[in-house]
Structure formats: structure tokens, C-alpha cells
């Protein structure tokens, strides 16, 4: 494994690990807030117990997110010092705002966790709301940085390609910021609610009369059925953004090798990069043109308009895109079925619970796959069109050692988190 690949792997592993805890830090406070609000409205003790448990879960996940986030802020420099030297001034503002939002979330989570007896119920609920809002804000600020890497803006270059002037405010609001921020925020609510729902479905199968798990299931289902359809809509907006601003990424995602009018949407298949064709795919005529441009006859830019040296890894991006879209569609199906069953008062049918359990990981898988699409799809650039990833890496040799060390560390951490959550959050209350 060469140093560039080791550095990329370490970054991918660190981000892939952190993002799971980051989305939990965004979405778990919302669940906990709804439970507590229900408690204040109904006075039922079960909602209080639920808010307590979810708050504890939030605290555990948040702590791991805080630590893995600290690691990432250092890794930016340790692995990509030249990128940071170039782009640090431009992405500093969203990063510093993210730091404040994170600190705010930490302060109010502390107040929430330890303030049950010291604060009035309304103030306590308000503290929970600040946790949820600042969690959302910190996610949005971090995405602003990634959006800038995808569509750099606010830079003025001279004839030699050197930065002559730049505007940090324009850099903050780059072209992909709005779509990407919405897509990530909704992803966090959809994926976390599906995961939480699945765990409570699992407990319900063991203990079908548990009111605790029924209420938990209902609240997470509510968040899922609202966020999932919105996410599908937001995905459509993202595709239109890609078609206009990042055509190489969309071309790789759909393995479009040749620029075409009335481009078909390809489902599945395997891209043969040397032959420049997608094999064994199911094609829906004109659907990609509708997805990308809103017009069945519109032209979709193919990889033939991108220099061969600037292609991302097409099979990886295509596969990740298929996984993301597939998971999202399946989740939409589960939500539709849930609405039907709820209407027919059969929400807790054992077979449906089994289906929900099986679909628990779908959101998190889609989340990871979506990050692969946006990150691998941007390659070979770290800053699209301006700086290559290979030019950004540290001169430090032997990077495979920290990669393996941090992988092992995160693997152990992940295992312990699972044990903790099982013992303290999802155990059946007797």
C-alpha cells in the first residue's frame, strides 16, 4: 500500500467512523426531545423513561463523536498539510462556526443530562431543543466545508493559476452547499430513526407487550416517515445540482461514458472502464435526463468530456450510487407500508417488525455510500479543478502504520459502543 492510498484510507476510515456518531449527535436529540415533549403533554411515565434512555444513548454517541471529530481536525493537517495550507483560510470560517456549535451542543447536553432535577420542565425541554438545533447546525457547517471542496468558489486566480484574491463569505456559500446540507441533514434523521426503530422492533419481538418499546417504535417511525420522502425529494435536487455543477461525478455515478441525449437511468450493472461501457444494467429510457435536467430529451454529459486522467474510480462510484439509491428506495417502501399498517391498526404485526429489523441498517449504509459517491466521485481532486489529492498528501513515509493503528482503535471503540448501548439504552425495562 503506497502512502497516498494509506492516507486516503485513513481519512476514509476516520470520516466513515465519525459520520455515524455525527448523525447520531444530530438526530438522537430530536428523538429524545419528542419523547420528553410527549411526557410533558401526557404525563405518562413511559415517555420520561424513554427520554432518559435516549439522552443516555445520545451522550455515549456524542462523546465518541467529539473524540473522533477532534482526531479529524488534526488529521486534516497530519495527512493533507498542503491542502490545508492552500485552503485553510477559505474553510476556516465554517470550521470555527462548527466548533462553536459543537461546544454549544456539549454545554446544553451537559445541562440536559444532569439537569433533570435542577431545571424546571420547560427550561429543561428548551435545553434539549438547543442540543438538537446546535447538533443540526454543526452538521450543516461541516458540510459547507465539503461543499467548498466539491465546488470551490470565492477564488480569483491569476493567469498562472495562483490564487490572487478570495472572499471567505462566497467560499462559505458555494454552489453545492444548499443541496448538500439538506441532503446530509435529512440523511441523519432518516438513517438514525431507521436504526433506532429497528432496535426497538427487535426488542418488541422478544417482548410484544412492552409499552416502552412500542412508544419508542412509534416516535422513531414518525421521524422516519417524515424525513424519508423529503430525502428522496432532496436526492432529486442533488442530482440536478450534479448535472449542472459536477457532471463528472454524475457521469461516474451512472457510468455514463458517452455524452447522450435522452439518457437512460441504469440500474445495477458493472462498468467496463476499458471498453467504456456499462454491462448488464437495466435501463429506464430517458429517466436519467429527467433526473438530471427535468427533461426526457436533455443532454447528459458523459465521461468522454472529461480527460481520462481526471476520471474518478467509475466502478466504485457507480456501485456506491446504486447502493445509496437502492437503500433509499427500500426505505421509502417501508415507510409507505408503515403508513398503510398504521391506518389498518396493524403496526405491530410481527412480520412487519421483522421487516423493520431487517431494514434497520439501510439508512446508515445509504449514508456511507452517499459519502463514497461524493468523495470518491470528486477524485482525483481534493479541491475540484484546483488541487489534486496526490499533491496534498504529507511527505511523511510509512503512513500505513497510523492507518492500521487508527483502524484497530476505532474497531475496538465501535465494539464497546455496541455493548454499552445494548446494556444501557435498549435493554427491556422490567
Amino acid at each position: 500500500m503506497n502512502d497516498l492510498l494509506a492516507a486516503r484510507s485513513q481519512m476514509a476510515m476516520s470520516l466513515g467512523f465519525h459520520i455515524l456518531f455525527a448523525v447520531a449527535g444530530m438526530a438522537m436529540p430530536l428523538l429524545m426531545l419528542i419523547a420528553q415533549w410527549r411526557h410533558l403533554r401526557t404525563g405518562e411515565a413511559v415517555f420520561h423513561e424513554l427520554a432518559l434512555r435516549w439522552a443516555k444513548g445520545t451522550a455515549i454517541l456524542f462523546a465518541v463523536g467529539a473524540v473522533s471529530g477532534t482526531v479529524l481536525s488534526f488529521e486534516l493537517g497530519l495527512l493533507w498539510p498542503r491542502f490545508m495550507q492552500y485552503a485553510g483560510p477559505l474553510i476556516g470560517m465554517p470550521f470555527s462556526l462548527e466548533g462553536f456549535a459543537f461546544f454549544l451542543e456539549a454545554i446544553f447536553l451537559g445541562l440536559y443530562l444532569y439537569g433533570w432535577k435542577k431545571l424546571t420542565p420547560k427550561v429543561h425541554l428548551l435545553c434539549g431543543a438547543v442540543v438538537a438545533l446546535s447538533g443540526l447546525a454543526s452538521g450543516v457547517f461541516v458540510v459547507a466545508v465539503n461543499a467548498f471542496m466539491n465546488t470551490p468558489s470565492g477564488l480569483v486566480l491569476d493567469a498562472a493559476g495562483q490564487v490572487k484574491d478570495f472572499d471567505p463569505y462566497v467560499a462559505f456559500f458555494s454552489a453545492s452547499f444548499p443541496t448538500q446540507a439538506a441532503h446530509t441533514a435529512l440523511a441523519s434523521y432518516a438513517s438514525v430513526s431507521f436504526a433506532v426503530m429497528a432496535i426497538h422492533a427487535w426488542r418488541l419481538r422478544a417482548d410484544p407487550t412492552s409499552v416502552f418499546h412500542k412508544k419508542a417504535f412509534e416516535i422513531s417511525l414518525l421521524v422516519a416517515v417524515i424525513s424519508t420522502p423529503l430525502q428522496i425529494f432532496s436526492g432529486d435536487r442533488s442530482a440536478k445540482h450534479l448535472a449542472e455543477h459536477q457532471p463528472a461525478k454524475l457521469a461516474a455515478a451512472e457510468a455514463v461514458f458517452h455524452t447522450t441525449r435522452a439518457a437512460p437511468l441504469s440500474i445495477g450493472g458493472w462498468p467496463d472502464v476499458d471498453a467504456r461501457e456499462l454491462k448488464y444494467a437495466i435501463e429506464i429510457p430517458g429517466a436519467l435526463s429527467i433526473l438530471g435536467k427535468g427533461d426526457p430529451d436533455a443532454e447528459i454529459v458523459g465521461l468522454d468530456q472529461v480527460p481520462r486522467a481526471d476520471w474518478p474510480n467509475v466502478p466504485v462510484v457507480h456501485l456506491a450510487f446504486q447502493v445509496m439509491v437502492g437503500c433509499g428506495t427500500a426505505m421509502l417502501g417501508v415507510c409507505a407500508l408503515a403508513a398503510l399498517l398504521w391506518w389498518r391498526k396493524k403496526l405491530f404485526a410481527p412480520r412487519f417488525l421483522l421487516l423493520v429489523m431487517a431494514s434497520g441498517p439501510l439508512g446508515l449504509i445509504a449514508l456511507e455510500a452517499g459519502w463514497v459517491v461524493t468523495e470518491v466521485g470528486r477524485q482525483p481532486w481534493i479541491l475540484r479543478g484546483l488541487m489534486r489529492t496526490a499533491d496534498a498528501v504529507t511527505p511523511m513515509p510509512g503512513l500505513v502504520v497510523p492507518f492500521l493503528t487508527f483502524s484497530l482503535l476505532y474497531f475496538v471503540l465501535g465494539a464497546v459502543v455496541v455493548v454499552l448501548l445494548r446494556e444501557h439504552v435498549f435493554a427491556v425495562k422490567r
Partner: protein
Amino acid sequence: MSAPEAAWLLIGAALLAYVLTAGADFGAGFWHLVARGPRGDAQREALEHELAPIWEANHVWLIFIVVALFTLFPSAFSVMSISLHLPLTAALIGIVLRGTAFTFRAYGLQPEPRRSALGRVFAVASVVTPLFLGMSLAALSTGAIRVAGGEVATGFFAGWTTLFAVSVGLLAIALFALLAAVYMTVAAPEPVRSDFRRLAIGAELAAAGFALAAFLRAGADAPALYARLSGSAWTWPVQLGAFGFAVATLGALWFRRFGLARFTVAAQVAMVVIGWGAAMGGHFVLPDVSLHNAASPPQVFAAFFPAVAAGAVLLGPSLFFLFRVFRAR
């Protein structure tokens, strides 16, 4: 004062805040590791009780320093990241182990043997992290890290492998242990309080020893820093101040004036940080990287300061609220 100068001071202030808050957290981990005797378990419990509401939030100062560096002084950040890759990575591993082990322990992993194993991880990481952070900071003052043509010219071992850097790393451990022990004399109940009084006095004496060792080794390993520390006009008030507050801390501990000791120990540690900062004299890496040659263009400062001000307006009252709720017992 120019914007880069103000930013340099702001980064120094954040470092001071990190040392005084997270430093005490690391120190608590140190006492966790060495707690012995009939009241060892009682001491550990008192430490955990005091740590719980704030847990790892104190790292926000470190994150602020990192963000301010790469935003406002990107080449300084790049030089540090390359030349100190190894000790910073070691410190990072310590931060990961520490933060998570503590949280898991605080949320009570059963059965008991696993719990104490995690406590050991937490404690060892609490000692390793400040050691490497201290060595990294010391390396910046040695003059051993050189930059030529915008690139680090001295490899990956320069500076932090000197005896001076090791002494500073040990000094950091001792000062953090001192901070934690003194804070515990204020917060903990008897008889644990008296234990920490004794331990604080020991830590103060150890810190004095390591400070002297670092000062003496600086002559050989960090000549530029040594020249400034021993030759400038401002240095003696600061050094005498640090010494005076150290003596005052010992006195306050001896006479059981714990509230006073908490103030004097914070002042003592602040004097050490301020003295080091003043000796760095506007440099990030002696002698090649300074606030003058590493600063971003003015519009970056113009955007950064309002963002920080807006954040501070939100955070100030929030922190005040946090402390008011939990201190009003």
C-alpha cells in the same frame, strides 16, 4: 495592534484556557493511575464525580487552536503538522483512548473487571497525551525545526526528541497533576481532600524539579529560547511571578487555604504559559515561522473575527448558565 498580532494573542489565550481546563482533566487521569492505599477507590470516585458534567468538552479549546492556526496562519499549521507528525499522532491516539474510556467507564460497564481495565486505559492515556503535547510545544522553541523554500527541511524527529522537550513533557504532566490535585482539595469531601492536599504538595515539588531541568537543558537544546528567557527585561517579572505563585500555592496548601490555592495555582500555570509565549515573541516555530510570514491575507482575519465574536456572544451566557446551574448546590 495588527490583526495577526491580535490573532496570535487569541491563540495564546486559547492555549492557556486549554491548559487550565483540559490540563486539570489530564491531571485527574494521572491521579487515577497512581491512586493507592486504603482510600484509592474513594479517590477515584471523587475524581470521576468532579469530571462528569464537563467530560471531553474542554477539547474545544484545542480544536479552536487548530482551526485558528490553519485559517489564519496556514503555513505554520502545515509546518507543524509535517515536522511533528509523530508526537501529534501519539497524542491523538491518547485523546481517543482517554475520551472514550472515560465515557464508557462513567456509564458503568459491568462487570467490575472490565470497568477497572477501562479505568487503566483512561489513566495511561491521560499521562501519554500531555507528555506528547508538551514535547510538541517544546519542539517549536528548540530552533531545530527549520524551513527552507516553504518546505520542512529537518525531517520528522527534529526538536521533539531532545532532552529539553522531554523535560517539558514531564513538566506538563506534573503541572496538570498539580492543577487537578488543587482543584480536588476544593471539591472533594474529607478525608480524600487531605489526600489531595498531600499529593498537590508533592506535585508542586516535582513540577519545580522538571521546570529547573527544562530551563537548564534549554541552554543546549533551545538556545534561542534560552537567550530570551535569560536575557530579556520582561522575563524576570514573569519568572519571579511563576516562582512567587508556586510558593504561595505551597503556603496556601500547607495552611489549608484551598480556595486561595486554587487561584494561586492557576496564576502559577498561567505565568509559565505566558512566559513561554512571550519568549516565542510572535513566532510559531523558532526561528523560521512567525506571525508575519505565516499570516493569511487581511480578508481572512476580517471574516474570522466576527465569526468568533458571534460564537462568543452565544457561548458566554451558555457557559455562565451551565456553571450557575451546577455550582448552586
